[in-house]
């Protein structure tokens, strides 16, 4: 058996996987196929989920939406918008990174990679918004977990496990996502001309207030000119702080930010429309649009962010100048690694940094050679790998679902 199979429903997914398990035929699971994250794998069969789409149930007052797993993320976002609601984790559009243009891909794809945007530090990751799912495991059995309610401790929380499992545990067929009301209004307070250390300090200062900042990012001077907004000067480094809520409260809080940072020489305020656009451009990685290089994200303790930047992004003395930006109030550094040396030395150094500082790297874009041979994740300890392998087997005993996608041999 080989080729591409396009099931029309969950029961066809189940039949196909059951047959593949019997014949030990590995399967690459594909949704919109828009994200080249994870190790490159070659399977004799492709399970194309294009037809597993559609809104099953949207209950605005119950704050959830149930959709077939391969429904377009954009379709879901548009539907929620029509009821002034949204996905709290702020879905990221990886289309720019890979193709230079918008493509949000599918809901299932975002879940598989657990992709969260700039609101993550306040609202939680995608995995925090997945309330329940139905899926087919590696034996072809239909399984379910969770439900439509936010408070649920009935059995293991498998939603957390499938979010970020890169399709290696099960094939999602239906998912329930928590939704939240859209904020009535938002503004973004901008501080220009800070260096990375000053930026981290500013994040720390503002996170110790009760101003409820919902976005906090920093773009250095060499990675700012892609912003084309009327009210934003794109020739200086930019630190941006987003404030959302009822208009009166937003205006008051932005004014508090002005007082807190009154010693800063150059600041500005982006009002509603420009503010929304700013965060869309930032979250969607438009700064790395169509990048030919390796792009990675490093989740770290905010107090380690500056040391990371100094070592790997920006140090004129030792001649390091990689494009980067900081998000999640210092908890995430995005880096584009220029002129990748054939031995991938810098990646190994970053991994070492991550191991030492208990941080975590995910390479989201790289070349085919690296994707085929290297590891896109930091590097799990032997004990963790062994447990990972046992978990994988508990869902997929024959290891036929995206084998090797996360770790070689698992």
């Amino acid at each position, binding site marked *: 058996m080989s080729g591409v199979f396009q099931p029309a429903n969950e029961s066809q997914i189940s039949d196909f996987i059951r047959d593949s398990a019997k014949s030990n035929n590995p399967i690459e699971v594909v949704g919109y196929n828009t994200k080249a994250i994870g190790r490159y794998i070659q399977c004799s069969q492709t399970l194309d989920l294009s037809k597993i789409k559609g809104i099953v149930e949207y209950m605005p007052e119950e704050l959830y939406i149930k959709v077939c797993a391969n429904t377009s993320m954009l379709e879901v976002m548009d539907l929620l918008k029509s009821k002034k609601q949204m996905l709290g984790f702020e879905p990221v559009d990886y289309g720019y990174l890979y193709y230079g243009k918008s493509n949000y891909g599918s809901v299932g794809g975002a879940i598989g990679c657990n992709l*969260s945007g700039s609101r993550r530090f306040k609202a939680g*990751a995608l995995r925090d918004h997945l309330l329940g799912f139905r899926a087919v495991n590696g034996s072809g059995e239909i399984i379910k977990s969770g439900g439509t*309610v936010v*408070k649920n401790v*009935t059995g*293991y929380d*498998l939603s957390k496990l499938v979010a970020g499992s890169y399709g290696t545990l099960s094939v999602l067929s239906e998912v329930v996502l928590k939704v939240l009301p859209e904020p009535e209004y938002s503004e973004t307070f901008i501080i220009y001309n800070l260096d990375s250390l000053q930026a981290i300090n500013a994040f720390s200062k503002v996170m110790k207030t009760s101003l409820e900042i919902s976005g906090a990012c920093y773009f250095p001077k060499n990675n700012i000119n892609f912003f084309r907004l009327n009210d934003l000067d794109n020739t200086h480094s930019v630190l941006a702080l987003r404030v959302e809520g009822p208009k009166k409260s937003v205006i008051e809080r932005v004014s508090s930010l002005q007082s807190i940072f009154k010693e800063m020489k150059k600041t500005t305020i982006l009002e509603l429309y420009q503010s929304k656009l700013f965060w869309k451009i930032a979250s969607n990685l438009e700064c790395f649009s169509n990048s030919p290089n390796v792009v990675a994200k490093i989740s770290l303790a905010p107090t380690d962010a500056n040391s990371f930047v100094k070592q790997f992004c920006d140090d004129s003395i030792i001649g390091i100048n990689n494009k980067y930006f900081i998000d999640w109030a210092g908890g*995430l550094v995005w880096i584009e690694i220029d002129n990748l040396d054939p031995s991938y030395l810098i990646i190994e150094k970053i991994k070492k940094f991550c191991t030492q500082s208990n941080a*975590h790297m995910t390479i989201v874009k790289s070349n085919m050679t690296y994707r085929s041979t290297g590891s896109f994740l930091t590097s799990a300890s032997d004990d963790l790998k062994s447990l990972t392998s046992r978990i994988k087997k508990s869902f997929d005993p024959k290891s036929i679902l995206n084998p090797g996608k996360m770790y070689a041999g698992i």
Partner: protein
Amino acid sequence: MTLQMPQADELVLNNKENIILDLKKISSNVLFENEEITPYETDGLTAYKQKPIAVVLPETTDEVSKVLSYCFNNNVKVVPRGAGTGLSGGALPLQDCILVGLGKFNKILETDFENRCVVAQPGVTNLAITNAVQHEGFYYAPDPSSQIACSIGGNIAENSGGVHSLKYGTTTNNVLGVEMVLMDGTVLRIGGKNLDSEGYDLLGLITGSEGLLGVITEVTVKILKKPQSVRAVLIGFDTIEDSGNCVADIISKGIVPAGMEIMDRPLIKATDDYAKAGYPRDVESLLIVELDGTESEVDILIEKVLEISKANKASYHRASASDEERLRFWKGRKAAFPALGVISPDYICMDGSIPRNKLADVLGEIYKMSKKYGLGVANCFHAGDGNLHPLIMYDSNNPKELKKAEEFGADILKYCVKVGGVLTGEHGVGIEKRDLMCEMFNDNDIQQQLRLKKAFDDKNLLNPGKVYPILHRCAEEGRIHIHKGKTKFPDLPRF
């Protein structure tokens, strides 16, 4: 005990003395005399009691690892225990087990305001975390009502909630990292001060796993800055439907309150008699809405909520003008358990979650059941997150009433599942709802979860007999039993 637990291992029971001697070589805190281990024979689900072979109170991760490794090698079952406040029997010992109590892991290791987190040992109480950071204006968000006594490790095991879950999430949304020991003694560190971690989300999986996958020995939790302002509104309705509609309307209008609570008429009367909270007595349903944020934001939201309540035929409404008044609104609600203890000799507290819009339907059904079984019932409902706690009143001196109350409770949970809800919102499955699991899950679902358990504990030695049915049947056994208002922890509010 009528509840079936895993069969005791005769080899282990016969080797009891040697096991105790061996454990004493690993830990200096091994309890085995009858009177020493009696306090550990039950948790918050006091209807069930069982003494273990011994209780070990380790003081270091290394000690936990050695105890577990020893038990693994000698096929001895282990039951972990935090503060023992759990309501579903998750820490009930087994006859042939070693109970590992984490009570000596009681230190806060680090308060890190720069990274907005606290690193603590698992035996630290939930409230102690807030106490350790409140001088800087921070707090730990999940606030189960037993927060003064329950441990943070136990919170992770149960994925504890509280009244603010809609806005701030439950434990799972507020934990950043853990150190845990697997049954074979392997020590793993997952997460830390960073937000996303390597590989499968083991942190999410371990949270709410009821002590079946590993023993937590350290936690890192997120702390939040306290909101500038908190206010509450008390709203009365002539029908349950109106209060349900009001809740739906508040959410539809884009408001996410910090807390929303509904009480029905029997509970309003009982709590107001007991706590003198000043509740209106002529309403069928009372809604408390708490709003937090910046001062102007809260003022705006209070106005909006009042408008919405009027549009939904509220017959009474009052916004708190001071923090004292806000606390008075909560006083009755928080006294639900002792208040019922006054009017009924015994009661069972159930814990289902339902879609918010099914409230009137489910309560209607519960009242019908109440008539059918001839037992009184009072209801409180975390309307924000759909978590319903019916309190079934009975008299344990009449053995027939106990059985009826248990059947009544099981019927309620089954109905919760029928309308799209779940068996337990925050108390956990434990042994209490174990045999109702097949109301929600089919064999495929349960087998998948059991295989996952094997990936962590292939000999099924860690907390066996909990959460998943031993028998392939849906029996109705055991609930939280409270006799004459006396719970195991009578001072703790339970809601």
